[in-house]
């Protein structure tokens, strides 16, 4: 038995094959929709998603950047303001230099090391016992006033002993030197 495929009737209008063109148009629509569904739509979706994420991340990055600028400025300002203290806390204590510094107020007879301890986790406290000779207690007050201008951070502490000796005053005091650990 022979299978006979029905022949599509040829309808022409001004010499244009209407059926063939309709089929091509359908093919065009199908191809267009397939490409749109498979390629263009996912690309647009992906593009939009990435663009959105980019701007969210960018906003976040800008915010952090501004925060960093603020922190940098704050640090630089603080560093500039406290430069003297920062450097003073890095320096070692020099006994000879200290003797020179106090010469105007007292004659240092001896500086004895007492102990070393950790202060507030980040600092080292070295304790010395200073024995000196001075003329009047006023020299001691002036020395305490001027100690804040010294290159080290020094704390003058108890016990403080004033002893009259041959017209002079013998002074003994505890001196604490603070340094960054």
């Amino acid at each position, binding site marked *: 038995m022979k299978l006979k495929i029905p022949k599509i009737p040829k309808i022409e209008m001004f010499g*244009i094959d209407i059926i*063939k*063109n309709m089929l*091509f148009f359908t*093919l*065009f629509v199908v*191809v267009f929709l397939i*490409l*749109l569904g498979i*390629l*263009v739509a996912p*690309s*647009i979706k*992906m*593009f939009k*998603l*990435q*663009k959105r*994420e*980019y701007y969210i*991340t960018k906003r*976040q*990055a800008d915010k*952090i*950047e501004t*925060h*960093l600028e603020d*922190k*940098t400025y*704050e*640090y630089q300002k*603080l*560093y500039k303001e*406290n430069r003297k*203290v*920062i450097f*003073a*806390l890095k320096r070692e204590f020099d006994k000879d230099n200290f003797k020179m510094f106090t010469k105007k107020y007292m004659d240092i007879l001896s500086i004895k090391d007492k102990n070393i301890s950790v202060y*507030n986790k*980040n600092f080292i406290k070295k304790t010395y016992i200073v024995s000196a000779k001075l003329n009047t*207690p006023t020299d*001691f*007050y002036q020395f*305490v*006033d001027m*100690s804040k201008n010294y290159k080290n*951070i*020094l*704390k*003058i*502490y*108890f*016990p*403080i*002993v*004033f*002893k*009259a000796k041959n017209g002079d005053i013998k002074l003994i005091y505890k001196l604490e030197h*603070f340094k*960054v650990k």
Partner: protein
Amino acid sequence: MYSFTRANKKSFFAEDTKLWLIFISAVSALMILFASFLFIEALFYKSDIKELKTQIIDNNKKIEDFTKKIDFIKQEKQLYTKISVNNELLKDGVKNLLDLIPDPITLTNIKIEKKSLYIYGVTPTKEVYNVLLLPPLKSIFTTTTTHFYQMENGWYRFESVNILKEEQ
């Protein structure tokens, strides 16, 4: 048989078929190009996002470092201020104590500790000491004990021990 006309070259596709095929191919190519463009742009965004995220992590680390440094400088400043105030208070304390000593009394030794004061000196009479020096010492310290030792010239050598209790 012989024909007087030359045979026309017959195309595999008809003219309108060719037009349709070219049109469909062109539209498809444009769509593929457009999709590729968007895909590449999305990839660029993705790469920028990655870069920004790295930048965020770095900047956060820097902020953390700066915060630590700032805190440390504040600690250093606080320590300096505390020591300065302490020295100032110590100076004023010593000055005030020495100012307490009246003219007729001469000191030979004075030991100042955090919670106690030891004074050794000479006074012409016990009354001078009791009237001029004892009251201010009593007003400052919790307990005040004084011992007098008479000297050959009639004056008195004294030892004064003054203690401040913990609560004060």
